[in-house]
């Protein structure tokens, strides 16, 4: 069905060789850009996971997911405002605030996402396939509207409360915040992978994704499983929102639409429905964007990202790590 795989390898090989050449000739800039891409990609990966899980289980492109992510950041900045945090340095109160706010926001977002699923998607489970897509778009507008009404159209400040230490290693500049993003992202992705593979609920999710009717016959509560998927996706999106805020310190209400689109692209890129695939897809897109901004020119970045996407899908129609499952 697909064109030979070597087309895909030629594509990847060329990119690797070009980048390796840069790495050798201008190592400092290369590794600096690599760090930028890595941090950006880690956040995309967190958002992409929510897309890939939901798509895997009910075949819905959940356009509202990006806005759940942004709303997480908005709630995060509001909650942090209740603590006596100090911006620009790292204090014990900052740490306590973070430890409290992280799980609280994640849980709130989980609750919101379950409600969204209940209101906008569940009643349409047997409707034409595109009907929930439209409610997802509607929900996306709705959430953007809530944030717009709440904090207005301008950018909103997110407190800068991470440690500000930074280092130059061989001319490459990086700080605690860069490490923080990558580490927290990696931990969350690993936790999710363990959860999906090891727990009973995770097994139920995989079964539901594979064949909903068969899963139901095996006694799996479909509604509960799907709700759980939305809940976990939103946990990660909420965490992603706070991490975004801590890292960039500026958020605005339309952030999620675009980031969501990129994250969904990342999910497809990695092979939709595939957890490690989504994480890798996020990283690849983050790195591509950073390298393209730096080496090719920022106005070509969109063309490069989506060009690569189309290229990969043409040569490998199920994404980087996608399984070649026959269509039902």
């Amino acid at each position: 069905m697909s064109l030979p795989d070597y087309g895909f390898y030629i594509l990847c090989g060329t990119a690797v060789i070009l980048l390796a050449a840069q790495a050798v000739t201008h190592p400092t800039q290369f590794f600096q850009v690599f760090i930028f891409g890595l941090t950006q990609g880690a956040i995309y990966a967190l958002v992409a996971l929510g897309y890939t899980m939901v798509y895997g289980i009910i075949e819905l492109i959940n356009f509202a997911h990006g806005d759940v992510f942004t709303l997480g950041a908005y709630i995060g900045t509001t909650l942090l405002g209740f603590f006596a945090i100090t911006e620009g340095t790292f204090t014990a109160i900052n740490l306590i605030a973070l430890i409290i706010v992280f799980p609280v926001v994640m849980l709130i977002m989980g609750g919101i996402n379950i409600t969204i699923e209940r209101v906008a998607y569940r009643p349409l489970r047997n409707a034409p396939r595109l009907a929930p897509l439209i409610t997802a778009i509607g929900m996306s507008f709705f959430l953007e509207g809530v944030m717009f009404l709440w904090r207005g159209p301008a950018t909103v400040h997110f407190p800068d409360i991470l440690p500000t230490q930074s280092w130059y290693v061989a001319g490459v500049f990086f700080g605690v915040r860069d490490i923080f993003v990558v580490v927290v992202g990696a931990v969350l992705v690993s936790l999710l992978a363990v959860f999906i593979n090891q727990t009973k609920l995770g097994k139920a999710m995989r079964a539901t994704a594979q064949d909903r009717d068969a899963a139901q016959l095996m006694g799996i509560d479909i509604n509960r499983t799907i709700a759980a998927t939305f809940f976990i996706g939103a946990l990660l999106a909420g965490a992603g929102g706070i991490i975004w805020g801590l890292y960039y310190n500026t958020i605005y209400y339309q952030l999620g639409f675009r980031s969501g689109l990129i994250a969904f692209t990342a999910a497809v890129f990695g092979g939709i429905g595939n957890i490690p695939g989504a994480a890798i897809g996020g990283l690849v897109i983050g790195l591509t964007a950073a390298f393209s901004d730096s080496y090719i020119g920022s106005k070509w970045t969109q063309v490069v990202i989506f060009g690569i996407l189309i290229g990969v899908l043409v040569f490998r129609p199920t994404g980087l790590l996608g399984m070649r499952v026959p269509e039902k």
Partner: protein
Amino acid sequence: MSNAAPARRRSLRERIGFRERIRDRDTAVYGILILLALMFPLVSYNITEGTAWISHATRAGYWVLLAIGLNVVVGFAGLLDLGYAAFFAIGAYTYALLASPQLASSPANHAVHISFWILIFVSLMMAALFGAILGFPTLRLRGDYLAIVTLGFGEIVPQLFYNFDQWTGGINAVGLIDQPLLPAWVQGPWSGDPEFKIVSPFNFNTDPVAYYVLVCFLVAIAVVLVTNLYNSRLGRAWMAIREDEVAAAAMGINTVTTKLLAFGIGASFSGFAGAYYAADVALVSPDNFLFIVSITVLVMVVLGGMGNVSGVIIGALVMYYLIFILIPGLPEIVTGFASNVGLGSLNQSTGDWPGLGEETQRLNFIIYGGILVAVMLLRPQGLLPSRVREQELKHAAVQEEEAAIEMSHA
């Protein structure tokens, strides 16, 4: 043979099938639409003493064209296209570049001015061509992977028009686009010369009614073409693919060619719409073809009733009214209402309260999103669904119910 009853002469009425046609919902919808289209200019002139409603109608027209085109891809063939605006952009730029002074300041160094009536077909062909070019390698993809490829294409195309600013003017947009000119016999003395004036001058430069008439013709042509396609062999092949691609292939349908045709034909309508849009707005900028345009057209198609041409037209008109007239006009309506019922004080801004009008404006997103969700929940099949699909849905629902009953008994 002699005992066979002589064929009864059918009455004229029966032969035209008048009653059946009236009963047929589509005919009724089209009839109402034609009537409204004819009455609209007269009525709107008298009510609003101006051309605002006519200008709105000319703009609603290209959304209708886009929705009809996307319906071929999404509704007939069941392929999800999230980058439809790209073909719209290609159509619009084709007309804009070949009928404006733009190319004089490009490396070509020579302005081109080709007639609208020729270019509208060139735009159509260009869009169809790009539809085929994109479709050829990617239509082998299944399901929503195709959606993502089209999404990517939709992101790339406006960016390319932006990036090649030497040719397209980039963000500065192509402006001063030629207006369509009617042949001399249409503009004859009976329309211009006051002495012999029978109809008012029909001039695209000054009169939105000219565009209104034009877009009505374009929509009519599109409807006839699409309806015939739907009832053709190709239309049935699309339906078969939509329902079950594997079974369709087993029945001997060349799925790739058939999908390619859906893609190309769907794209060609947006080329059509693009050329018209470029002429009407007279300014084509890459910013007008972003993802939100593709999404809006998709919403029109799904909300109207996928697969049903008349439903899609209604969907496009309703959504146009909602997005471009009702929601932007809400603050005025609300403040007017408040002052009429004696709550005028609410309209003033005090302290944190920004005033009722401003507050309503801030609610725009929520209202729009809420309406989308509510309509889809109330009518998941769309406002005016295709009859065939409605039957299928009912069938499926019954099956589900039966399955549920069986389960509960088990």
